[in-house]
């Protein structure tokens, strides 16, 4: 404790989310901006819903994909002969966005509390090198992060577009956000149920199983050790809850529909990618061009991308499951078969949580320029291709590729920055070579 500057100790004492009299004040102080934010976000959406833009947006391929298009949901419901659907109003979609934002807000608030607590213990145990003090996070900067997360989600143009298009992506995001919330709160059962719901909607959230289990084990002080019985017991417990609820859901769908037809037409549709409508993903162009007899092979290669990264990432990030969740969400939204901008919005909402990594990011300028340019070029090239007929699909796919490369760069940049900070926290900020000169870290 000897090397600690005064401000850090002071700030810690006044950390507003401490469960003391500060908590009350904190609630009042933070609830007002959050409410304002929610009202603003809902107003923007409501205004857009009433405008003529709504129809236009609902047709954009960047915003809706075959599995998230609201038109298809309505069609499906009509086929089921349910009469007027209770979900057809726009309020429903606004509500989904609000739920996502609030869940993320609470989750991040809780997570920050834990991060701070952990940092405090580490500081008291003198675990950090002395020159790393500037890397230590102060409550002041952490104070507004939950609000920023909610803001990043609600005011992100991608989310707004997705909501106005009534894409069901907003619902998926809400379920995933609830899953994250219940996981961070440490509720094993709810976590498994929400994860199962998310998996039920679109298979990919399956990979979030690993970070969820890692997090819950960390929370219950179960060591990640293959030789311990408690480790296996926990995994068995979680998987039982997860698979059990999945089983219940699938059986329910079976009894509702009376046949197993929905399995191939939902999961087969996601996995075998029969609909090659252009979107912002990597699949459509590739599979439109490919010879039919290579299809299965490349389908496996493409789909394995989503699932495969789980293993190395879980090994590397087993101490930091929440960052792992962020990475997984990004990987899913990049490599899934029918991605839309709504998926991107979900992982982008997490960017403020990692704002302390900002100094280690190297390609912010490049990535933000490319993402910005691509987002505006999508509609322009779509217009040139489909309406003017002067450009062709290659132009559009080129932008898709660039967009995804930028996303990958963004994610890998964050990954690098995160690992680098951890490295500095163990080895000190000012690295020296053996001969005493200043060293730089090079990623090769």
């Amino acid at each position, binding site marked *: 404790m000897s090397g600690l500057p005064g401000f850090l100790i002071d700030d810690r004492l006044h950390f507003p989310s401490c469960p003391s009299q500060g908590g009350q004040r904190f609630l009042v102080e933070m609830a007002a901006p959050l409410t304002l934010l929610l009202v603003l976000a809902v107003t923007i959406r409501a205004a857009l819903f009433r405008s003529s833009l709504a129809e236009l947006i609902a047709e954009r391929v960047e915003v809706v994909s075959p599995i998230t298009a609201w038109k298809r949901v309505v069609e499906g419901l009509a086929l089921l002969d349910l009469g007027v659907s209770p979900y057809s109003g726009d309020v429903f979609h606004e509500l989904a966005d609000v739920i996502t934002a609030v869940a993320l807000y609470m989750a991040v608030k809780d997570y920050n509390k834990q991060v701070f607590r952990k940092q405090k213990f580490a500081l008291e145990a003198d675990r950090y090198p002395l020159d790393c003090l*500037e890397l230590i996070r102060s409550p002041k900067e952490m104070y507004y992060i939950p609000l920023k997360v909610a803001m990043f989600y609600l005011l992100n143009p991608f989310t707004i577009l997705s909501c106005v298009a009534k894409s069901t992506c907003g619902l998926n995001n809400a379920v995933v956000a609830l899953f994250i919330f219940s996981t961070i709160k440490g509720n094993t059962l709810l976590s498994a149920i929400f994860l199962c719901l998310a998996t039920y909607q679109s298979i990919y959230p399956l990979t979030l199983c690993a970070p969820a289990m890692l997090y819950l084990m960390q929370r219950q002080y179960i060591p990640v050790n293959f030789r311990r019985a408690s480790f296996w017991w926990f995994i068995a417990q979680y998987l039982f809850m997860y698979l059990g609820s999945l089983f219940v859901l699938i059986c329910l769908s079976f009894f509702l529909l009376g046949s197993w037809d929905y399995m191939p037409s939902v999961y087969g549709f996601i996995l075998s990618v029969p609909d090659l409508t252009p979107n912002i993903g990597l699949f459509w162009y590739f599979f439109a061009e490919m010879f039919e007899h290579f299809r299965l092979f490349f389908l496996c290669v493409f789909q394995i991308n989503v699932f495969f990264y789980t293993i190395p990432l879980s090994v590397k990030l087993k101490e930091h499951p929440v960052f792992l969740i962020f990475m997984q969400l990004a990987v899913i939204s990049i490599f899934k078969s029918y991605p839309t901008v709504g998926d991107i919005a979900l992982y982008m909402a997490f960017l403020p949580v990692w704002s302390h990594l900002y*100094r280690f990011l*190297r390609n912010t300028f*490049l990535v933000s320029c490319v993402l*910005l340019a691509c987002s505006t070029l999508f509609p322009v090239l779509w217009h*040139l291709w489909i*309406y*003017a007929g002067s450009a062709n699909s290659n132009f559009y796919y080129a932008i898709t590729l660039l967009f995804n490369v930028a996303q990958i760069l963004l994610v890998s940049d964050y990954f690098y920055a995160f690992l680098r900070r951890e490295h500095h926290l163990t080895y000190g900020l000012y690295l020296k070579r053996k001969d005493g000169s200043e060293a730089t*870290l*090079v990623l090769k």
Partner: protein
Amino acid sequence: MGLLSDPNRRRALINLLTRLNAPICVVCYMAGVAWFMGLAFEPFTLRTYMSENAMGSTMVEERFPSGERAVATGREFAAHKKKVSGMPVEWLVKTMQARGLEVYTQRFSRTLPFPDENKERYMVKGTNVYGILRAPRAPRTEALVLSAPCTPGDNNNQAVGLLLGLAQYFRNQIYWAKDIIFLVNDHDLIGMQAWLEGYHHTNTTGMDWSPLQGRGGSIQAALSLELSSDVVTSMDLVLEGLNGQLPNLDLANLFYAFCQKIGVLCTIQGKLQRNDWDSVSGYSHAVQTMMLMVMKQASGRPWGDHGLFLRYHIEAATIKGINSFRQYKTDATTIGRLLEGMYRKLNNLLERLHQSYFFYLMPSLSHFVSIGYYMPAFGLLAVILLLRALDLWVQLATPPPTTEDGIADIEQVRHAHSSSPGVLSVLTPLVISHLTGAALYMLPIRFQEMAVEHFPVSETEAVVLTAIAVYTLLTIIGTEQGWRVLKLVALLYLAVLLGCTALINFSLGFILALTLVPAAAFVTPHVPKVLSAFVLVILSPACTLLFSVFFFQELQEMPVSFLDGWLLYLSVISQGILDHFLYGSLVYPLIALLVYPCWLLFWNILFWK
């Protein structure tokens, strides 16, 4: 990827780029302009060639015999037109029916947002007449269009005569595999708009028209015929359509091939082909031709009746007969044979024209510059914006040598945090300049009636004056440091905006970049105010348009005095606004809603306190 991950090399590159930023920008600008001027130099261009297989070899025989009769029909049409002082609908219907076509008419009416003083029209009512020649050899799923506008005065009578003559001749041939629609449209573009909207069941501009009673198949290609006088010495090809869209290059190739075959003098932009590309005058001729195309394309308006077809994915061009007082005359039979040959080739098409280029510039009819050659010229200009943005980014981040590797003094970090400008200081100018832009877009039409009530001005003038009044409005917002962030945002905004514009309409993007990029690059609050304000006004979109008007007149070899030029400038603005409301041209909203606010941002930066 070494550059992305190796901090040492990155630092070296970034140091180089920031240290030499200004010289690199100047070099890029010069290189961009030089590249563009080099495009017209013949060794750097490609020869045109026919890409479409179905139209490959010129194996059709043109036998159209009755040019004289067509001219006589034209005279008859002129007489009837004079009698009813407008479109002689009944006569046309009768004549077309006599030639064995299925004839239909379409009525339309449209009230302009304000009176058009160039063409002297306000409440437009008219009738289109069209006859369909059904294809004897195919299931009638595809069609071709030949149109001739019925214009007031003696202008285009011969074209209608030739159209009717061709209809009669085509009717007797058996090889047609596509329906051929002969259309005489009233009130030129307005009539064409009504007919196309009726044909495709769309209504994008809120016009009133009666639905079409008869249809052919989906239209594959269209030609519009204009013969400005009875004596024709050369044929001119007009390609520029709405929003700078061009038809497939194969259509131009087809025209050129048949002109060569039949021996008709053919021009583009009214300029003949020259062979002395290595001489100075030959090169400047090519530059002139290309610049004319660039100016016309940048204007975003349809330069012939074909311009509206392009929106519906139909390849179309206008063929104009021009009297340039040469010895050699082209008679109606020859023009008829030219058209017959082109239609027979188009009749052979198995799919839409798509093999050749859609993005091109033509320095002469036999040479073209494709997108791959002209885009670098724009790219060199756009990269200046990115370089300036990079420079600002590096300045905004804490001192470069330490931050690059993520390690910086804590004081510097704190300093950077405390002085980083809030979102509001950037958002306010952004919102205000966009609101001004929206005002520029809305006010001219909204307030024209009000202005007419209070001032003794004509309505068009009222519109234009309102537009200019909004334009010269000054907005100065002074707060502390944050201009760098604002400039960074403005630079990226401009780069994306110009990039998108150049993709849709290269010429417009390039001309805007030519003036806006230097303005964007040099503006800071620390340059001499009065001088830079003057330069900034000179480089504003409005002045760009003014210069373009004079330049265009100069290129057409019709120089105007300043006063005439000013009047022309006013009429160009009102035409631009009319084009937007009548046909959906995007140039006016683009300038008003996006480019002008972007320029205002730089204006704000100049007057930052």
